[in-house]
């Protein structure tokens, strides 16, 4: 890694560092913030640099802590709540969905609850069903709650900054399987509004469109390399913000390629992959479709522990490439 590159985990850490150095309203609260093994290298030494009054390690109380952060956000602060595993975040979901997401609407904009919740996807390694989940689709169902899924190192930093500075409540979901990804360091532009943060093309190609968010963008990129070796050029759309969702870029791509594979690191039923397909079907003229769209998702089961089962449970780049071949070759 060269000097002008950073890892995804370092991107997250720099996002925190920028926010806490530049905005006195920002504090962060959650379990494990004074211990490196909860959040990997993504928050290293923040407590030493900014103090334990602004980097608050808490009792084992997801619900109380998340809701207290909502209360502080209503009072004008910009708290970032850390849930080191999304599975445990389920315990703190009531204030996210019932309070923060609705606060602006309930009071017709007279008050807002601009909390940022950071939910970390931490799976694999035989951790089993309650240490593995990626529940982004649940949360993306809720009007008023912005849901961000960074796929690259600079987005890991920038989406955290933009999300925290946004006047809307934000769920920022990062993925431990991306922490070692590297990317080129750009300048921080703090003035970007989330209403302007739409999907990005991560690769251009005319044969097939692959759409994902977070970790599945990495899978798509790896699959595209495999396919390129076979003369198939895939176009890759990184959604970045899945609620509210902008289908425009994916639909434009599919209108050109005529083929779509949606990739999601969670289950299929009523999930993000279904939303991707629906968004394209509603926008792409029937005549432009060359094949029925496909979904690559987890198997419809809780995550298993044994490595032999994990190997078939999680999608991989070979599986994405195989689905693409089937769409192209019939």
């Amino acid at each position, binding site marked *: 890694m060269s000097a002008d590159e950073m890892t995804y985990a370092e991107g997250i850490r720099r996002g925190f560092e920028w926010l806490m150095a530049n905005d006195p309203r920002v*504090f962060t609260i959650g379990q494990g913030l004074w211990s490196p093994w909860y959040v990997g290298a993504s928050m290293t030494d923040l407590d030493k640099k900014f103090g334990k*009054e602004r980097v*608050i390690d*808490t*009792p084992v*109380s997801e*619900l*109380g*802590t*998340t*809701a*207290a*952060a*909502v*209360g*502080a*956000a*209503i*009072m*004008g*602060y910009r*708290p970032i709540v850390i849930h080191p595993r999304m599975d445990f975040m389920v315990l703190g979901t*009531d*204030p996210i969905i*019932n*309070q923060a997401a609705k*606060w*602006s*609407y*309930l*009071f*017709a*904009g*007279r*008050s*807002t609850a*601009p909390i940022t919740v950071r939910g970390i996807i931490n799976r694999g390694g035989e951790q089993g069903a309650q240490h593995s989940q990626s529940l982004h689709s649940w949360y993306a169902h809720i*009007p*008023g709650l*912005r849901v961000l899924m960074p796929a690259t190192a600079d987005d890991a930093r920038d989406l955290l900054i933009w999300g925290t500075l*946004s*006047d*809307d409540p934000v769920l920022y979901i990062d993925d431990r399987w991306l922490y070692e990804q590297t990317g080129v360091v750009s300048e921080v532009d703090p003035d970007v*509004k*989330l*209403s302007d943060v739409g999907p990005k093309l991560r690769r251009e190609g005319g044969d097939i469109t692959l759409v994902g968010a977070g970790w599945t963008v990495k899978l798509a990129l790896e699959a595209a390399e495999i396919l390129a070796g076979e003369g198939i050029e895939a176009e890759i759309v990184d959604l970045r913000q899945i609620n*509210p969702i902008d289908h425009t870029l994916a639909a434009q791509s599919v209108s050109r390629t005529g083929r779509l594979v949606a990739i999601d690191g969670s289950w299929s039923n009523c999930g993000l992959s279904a939303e991707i397909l629906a968004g394209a079907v509603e926008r792409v003229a029937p005549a432009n479709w060359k094949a029925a769209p496909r979904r690559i998702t987890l198997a419809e089961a809780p995550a298993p522990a044994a490595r032999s089962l994990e190997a078939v449970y999680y999608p991989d780049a070979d599986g994405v490439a195989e689905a693409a071949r089937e769409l192209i070759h019939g």
Partner: protein
Amino acid sequence: MKPTFHKLHRSTLGDLVEPGAYRDPVRIGNRSREALLEDLACMLRIRKTEEQVGTLAEQGIVKTPIHLAIGQEAIPVGLSRHLRPSDAVFGGHRSHAHYLALGGDLDGLIAEIMCRETGVASGRGGSMHLIDRARGFAGSVPLVGATIPLGVGAALALKMDGQGGVGVCYFGDGACEEGVLHESLNLARVLNAPAIFVAENNLYSSHLDIAQRQPNDRLARFAEAHDMRARTVDGNDVCAVAAAAEELVGAARAGDGPGFLEVITYRWRGHVGPDANIDVGLRRSATEVAAWKKRDPIARLASALIADGALDEAGYDVLKQQELERVNAAIAAAEGAGFPDPATLLDHVYSEGA
């Protein structure tokens, strides 16, 4: 061998839950007569508001679910005397009184209950979602127990501000059965947040009385389990509430930690709607409701002020009439206001727009 069980419920609140007790005029001591007359007017404003809103519901004019606080007026009035507009107060489903006691705008309240554009939440909230930031009322939300951690978070923010502000959450005896109470009390103590937990113990949660839901009727025991300063007082005595609030709020402002104020009271009407719910509560009887009406927080203050000479019967009647007229004027104003424009349905979902 036959198994043995502990008695399911024991009352440790003594006379506080005996409606026959605490019926005398409240002891006003050397408190400012002017302030007490203001308190009386505020309590009357709350009662007249609730009575008229109940009538509107009976007439089918108000559809939004209403939870009336008739009988509980002394609690927010006694507490709010020791609060500032820079504090943050969160209420629950039964919060018209909490809002009005802080000086919340009556017209805005009535219009919101009638779901008009001129309401405090522009008709988006209804009866259970009130707000008046300028008066310190940070919002009311009806999910049972939801206000408790919001108050803790506001208290944490006010502690960071360093201006001596306090975060206040109102909740009832039912909310004490939610796990979030435990988390919030613990968190407030560990963070030394200046939070005031106001437990309005009206002995009922929806249709079940407290003896059917908890092994002990004294809610302050939860605070004691978290090593927190707690007071339990007669919630139908505005002076007793004010005295306890002054002590707990003062300590929190001074950085001496959160406080738990348990106030014993009784709602004259049902959980929701204008009637008394004597047909809903498994053990709630007309006799019990009638007995509690004799512990009327308004009559007890009025009779104390009349005995003292600060008020006479004629003056009391004028006060009642004035407050009724204010409420009726607010209703007339709301009736003349429009409902929200359907074109604004999606406004305020996102602050920045989608």
